[in-house]
């Protein structure tokens, strides 16, 4: 089955012009966190000041953003859009190694930060720009990277080998995705959104932050580790009406909300990042009986939004990711590229003006992902008679836990070089709450090695989101004729 819409009819409006027009249209709307507070009008002035200041130094064209505060990340991002630089969003929330890998791979010429003492930055000979002081702390002269002119951002995702993949997202990609989201996402100036995840994720940058500006919504950032009790406190204190999260986070929020006698004033919820399960859908509805719940789907490579489930269908089709957006075409194909009939499982592929240019300096991965103009999502899905899409599993070994994409090979490669460990297998196990749990099987040549020691290794060598949920010691791991690991078949949510 194929759903073909306005293929290749992309809009080419400049992103900053679009954002600035909306910021000025809603001058009294606000962006804030626990320290900062600015109206949209003040934001326009601040972005103008910072973009001019950044451009005054020849600090190159590809600039990383590493801030402790998401408010400052947002200001830095908008300033780079205005200054026509390419932003590389970083987040220290997933560990220093994770950040360093991205810096080593993309090699930005400058980092914008609000924390110059950050240990990640110490070993790099880069320009450092202090966003909250509007000045360079250190300025190295850099020639401009040779980049496409409207390249807004390089959004990094995990890769199987441990080297990140950098999706090159243009201004036009983002504008098209935003205008599509704007058509269905019913949020308005009177709303207040709580953004509790880092802008490092495309789903948060586009699907929460930028779209909120387009609609004039008050934006409140929550910094730090996700703590459901604190998040709910902020929701209550600031009368939050819009909240977006993964099913895992919504599950934890919902369980606590159900303990209150008065419901929270949440009017709109958007859920994305992993497969919804029946248990989480039911609990979410119980905790937020009158909220419009959007189940949405996307991937970084599509800037990211691809489909959405209209909220009036959520209770009847809670496991569906809905219909493609206005300018997205989607089809389900078999391994030979043949379009499949309704209810037949195959790979979901999409074509849209929001699909990335390609992966930064990785032509091989780009040619595997985008073929004949179609982005291959790697998700196995089917469509029903009405065109509603359902995700069933992954084509590759990737595991999605609590909304984070995890490649087993990346973890296995880290563990296999540790002394005492001879072989490792990581796989996902279906879980009704977090989507999948990460299971680890180890073959060791030192019988004295304990789970506690394995945990210590994981804690030191892996970012927190990659630490397995459990470990099992085994005598051998099954391999096929060519010596490759036989991976357990992933079972999806449906």
């Amino acid at each position, binding site marked *: 089955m194929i759903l073909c819409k306005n293929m290749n009819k992309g809009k080419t409006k400049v992103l900053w012009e679009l954002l600035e027009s909306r910021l000025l249209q809603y001058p009294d709307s606000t962006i804030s966190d626990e320290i900062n507070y600015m109206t949209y009008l003040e934001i326009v002035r601040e972005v103008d000041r910072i973009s001019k200041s950044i451009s005054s130094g020849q600090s190159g064209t590809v600039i990383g953003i590493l801030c402790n505060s998401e408010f400052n990340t947002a200001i830095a991002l908008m300033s780079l859009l205005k200054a026509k630089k390419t932003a590389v969003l970083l987040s220290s929330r997933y560990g220093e190694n994770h950040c360093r890998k991205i810096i080593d791979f993309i090699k930005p010429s400058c980092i914008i930060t609000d924390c110059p003492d950050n240990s990640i930055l110490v070993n790099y000979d880069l320009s450092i720009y202090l966003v909250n002081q509007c000045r360079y702390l250190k300025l190295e002269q850099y020639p401009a990277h040779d980049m496409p002119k409207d390249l807004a951002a390089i959004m990094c995702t995990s890769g199987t080998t441990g080297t990140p993949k950098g999706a090159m997202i243009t201004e036009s990609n983002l504008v098209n995705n935003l205008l599509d989201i704007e058509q269905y996402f019913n949020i308005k100036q009177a709303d207040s959104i709580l953004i509790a995840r880092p802008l490092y994720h495309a789903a948060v940058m586009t699907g929460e932050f930028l779209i909120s500006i387009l609609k004039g919504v008050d934006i409140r950032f929550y910094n730090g*580790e*996700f*703590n*459901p*009790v*604190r998040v*709910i406190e902020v929701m209550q204190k600031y009368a939050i009406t819009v909240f977006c999260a993964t099913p*895992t*986070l919504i599950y*934890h929020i919902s*369980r*606590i909300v159900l*303990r*209150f006698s008065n419901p929270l004033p949440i009017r709109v919820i958007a859920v994305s990042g992993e497969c919804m399960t029946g248990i989480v859908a039911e609990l979410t509805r119980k905790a937020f009986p009158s909220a419009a719940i959007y189940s949405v789907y996307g991937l970084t490579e599509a800037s990211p939004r691809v489909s959405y489930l209209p909220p009036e269908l959520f209770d009847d089709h809670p496991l569906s990711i809905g219909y493609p957006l206005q300018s997205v075409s989607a089809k389900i194909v078999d391994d030979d590229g043949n379009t499949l009939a309704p209810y037949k499982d195959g790979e979901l592929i999409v074509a849209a003006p929001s699909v990335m240019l390609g992966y930064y300096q990785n032509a091989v991965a780009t040619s595997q992902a985008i073929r004949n103009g179609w982005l291959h999502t790697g998700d196995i899905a089917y469509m029903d008679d009405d065109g509603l899409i359902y995700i069933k599993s992954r084509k590759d070994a990737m595991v999605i836990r*609590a909304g984070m994409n995890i490649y087993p090979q990346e973890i296995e490669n880290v563990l296999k070089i540790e002394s005492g460990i001879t072989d490792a297998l990581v796989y996902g196990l279906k879980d009704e709450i977090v989507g999948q749990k990460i299971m680890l099987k180890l073959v060791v040549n030192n019988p004295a090695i*304990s*789970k*506690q020691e394995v*945990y210590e290794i*994981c*804690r030191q060598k892996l970012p*927190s989101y990659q*630490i*397995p*949920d*459990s*470990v099992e010691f085994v005598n051998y791991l099954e391999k096929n004729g060519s010596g490759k690991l036989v991976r357990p078949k992933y079972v999806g949510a449906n």
Partner: protein
Amino acid sequence: MEKEEKINGIISKLSFAGKSPLPDDELSSDLGFDSLSMVELLIVIEESLNILIEVSDLDPARLTTVQDLYDLMQKYE
């Protein structure tokens, strides 16, 4: 004492580290709990001990060590 043993059993079961917890063990760095799994831990303890934990006590930021957890549970008989 019986309550602490029950709590220890639950921690061992839910913790990746898989070890018997000591009172001074830190829930995050020694036992591998993050803020979400700490809430999960509290709710499993709640069900196991047949108590109702107040929402403010479900805040994982208030807990550092296993002893903190024992102390918190003293409140609920």
